[in-house]
């Protein structure tokens, strides 16, 4: 279970990779893990994210007990999972639950890049799907924060098929007209991009987030040259028509609140 009593336990003193400003742990927490110097948005652990978005004490976690199996009997996969669990304090790469935002109920899911690069295996696929179906079932809008390097290859074909599973849940949400909002955070790539992450009614993104299907290195391998700066950034994706709005982290809660308020007529 995600520990919301200590939402910032994973936050540490950090140097900004863009402007080299050093932020103390306290400054990181105070500035919502956004660089004081240049506005760079650091990756955020799931607990801190929930603390930032959900009304105090409103988050109730769902499906915290889902644990990955090893369907390919791949050597070392169980160990990797255990290590990731220890490192992140999470059972897998997504935390889901119900929450309130400015008093309005919703289903909230937050992916964590810290857990094996936010990769989507059976557990992530199942939890995301259950969260969406819970929203469909109870008519609560669904908000998902994405952060993922793609499919979890260690689970082979099963990880690929999680894309179909989450997209099917998104289809049901859509047909039932339950609002579905996506917040794309750094980075969101691979199978997550090619499934539920691109299926929201409204797609928000954090500034500078990398968003794409193929990763930059794969693309560079295809064309045998460097990509221009900013390729696949949130700003690029807004210009290309795939992101509704880029929202700095300190405005995120207000923006989500506005969306919940204006999607109540369904």
């Amino acid at each position, binding site marked *: 279970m995600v520990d919301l009593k200590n939402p910032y336990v994973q936050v540490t003193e950090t140097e900004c990779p863009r402007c080299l400003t050093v932020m103390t742990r306290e400054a990181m927490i105070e500035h919502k893990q956004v660089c004081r110097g240049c506005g760079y948005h650091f990756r955020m652990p799931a607990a801190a994210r929930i603390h930032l978005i959900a009304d105090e004490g409103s988050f109730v976690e769902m499906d915290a007990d889902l*644990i990955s199996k090893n369907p*390919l009997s791949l050597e070392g996969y169980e160990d990797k999972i255990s290590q990731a669990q220890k490192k992140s304090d999470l059972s897998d790469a997504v935390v889901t639950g119900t929450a309130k935002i400015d008093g309005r109920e919703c289903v909230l899911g937050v992916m964590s890049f810290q857990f094996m690069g936010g990769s989507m295996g059976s557990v992530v696929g199942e939890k995301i799907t259950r969260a969406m179906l819970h929203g469909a079932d109870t008519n609560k809008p669904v908000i998902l924060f994405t952060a993922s390097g793609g499919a979890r*290859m260690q689970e082979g074909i099963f990880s690929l*098929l999680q894309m179909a599973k989450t*997209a*099917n849940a998104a289809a049901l949400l859509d047909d039932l007209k339950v609002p579905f909002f996506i917040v794309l955070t750094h980075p969101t790539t691979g199978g997550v991009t*090619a499934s539920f992450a691109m299926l929201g009614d409204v797609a928000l993104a954090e500034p500078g987030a990398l968003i794409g299907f*193929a990763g930059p290195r794969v*693309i560079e391998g295809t064309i045998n040259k460097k990509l221009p700066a900013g390729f696949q950034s949130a700003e690029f994706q807004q210009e290309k028509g795939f992101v509704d709005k880029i929202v700095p982290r300190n405005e995120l809660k207000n923006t989500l609140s506005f969306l919940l308020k204006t999607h109540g007529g369904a």
Partner: protein
Amino acid sequence: MDELKNKLEELKDLAGKNNLDINKSLAEIEAMLNVGKDSPTWEKVQLARRLDRPGALEFINLICDDFMELHGDRYFKDDPALIGGIGTINGQAITFIGNQKGSNLKENLYRNYGMGGPEGYRKALRLAKQAEKFNRPVVTLIDTSGAYPGPEAEARGIGEAIAQNLKHFSLLKVPIICFVIGEGGSGGALGIGVGDKLYMLENTIYSVISPEGFASILLRDSNKAREAADIMKMTAKDLFEFGIIHGIIPEAPGGVQNDPAYTAEMMKELILSNIAVLRKKKPESLIRYRSRKIREVGHFTESAREEQDLFKLFTRLFS
């Protein structure tokens, strides 16, 4: 198993002599029996990738009495890497969609080696929606190493395009029958791979990443593709044992390129027999069954918990 096969042959002969149309269900039995055949994974990878392996259009022409290719996504271009159109079998109209690699260098270049861009997947969705509108079943033929990983495809939303297909195919109100006819590579394959039935030809593969990619990322040695292929469990037999595909369609000795008509005939029979059955279902039960099948895939443990009841959701959907 061999005995069973012999019996099957005898039964076929008998049926043929008596002019009985039991071939359709026989094809299905055969597809499931065929699971027994086995050969090294790497051999299958190579057979699946052969240049002279028949592609989607070749199979369509063998399967259909008549076929009209339809072009274009209505947004940006016609993508030759992903083809589609309307075919007839015994006068029955069916929408066909497939990856198309091309069978020589010139064709490969024109068709971008079957690596579809967003336009290809959007064309596929347009044709699938058109099929739904006019109550035509859909058959998809999968044969791609993956969607095109180039900057244009990214800029025009290849991820979004595949996502939309996964979403809309999963609730399409007509039967969808999918065949892996060569390489089933990652999201590019899945983008036309969501349906009611999924079959693989005997010497085909279907995986989340190429064995080369798996080797270089997880085994940290790009030369270990052969080893990776075994670890990944990507053959028709593997996927049948996982319960992910519904059957394996035999190929001629040495590969389907040696006798495409033999395999096409089996596919044709499977298409007809499946459509006959799936057509009888109401759209709501068709997509409920399809959704349940999609939902089931995954391996994890949890404390005892009530399974979420999809039935209730679907009841709302159709009320």
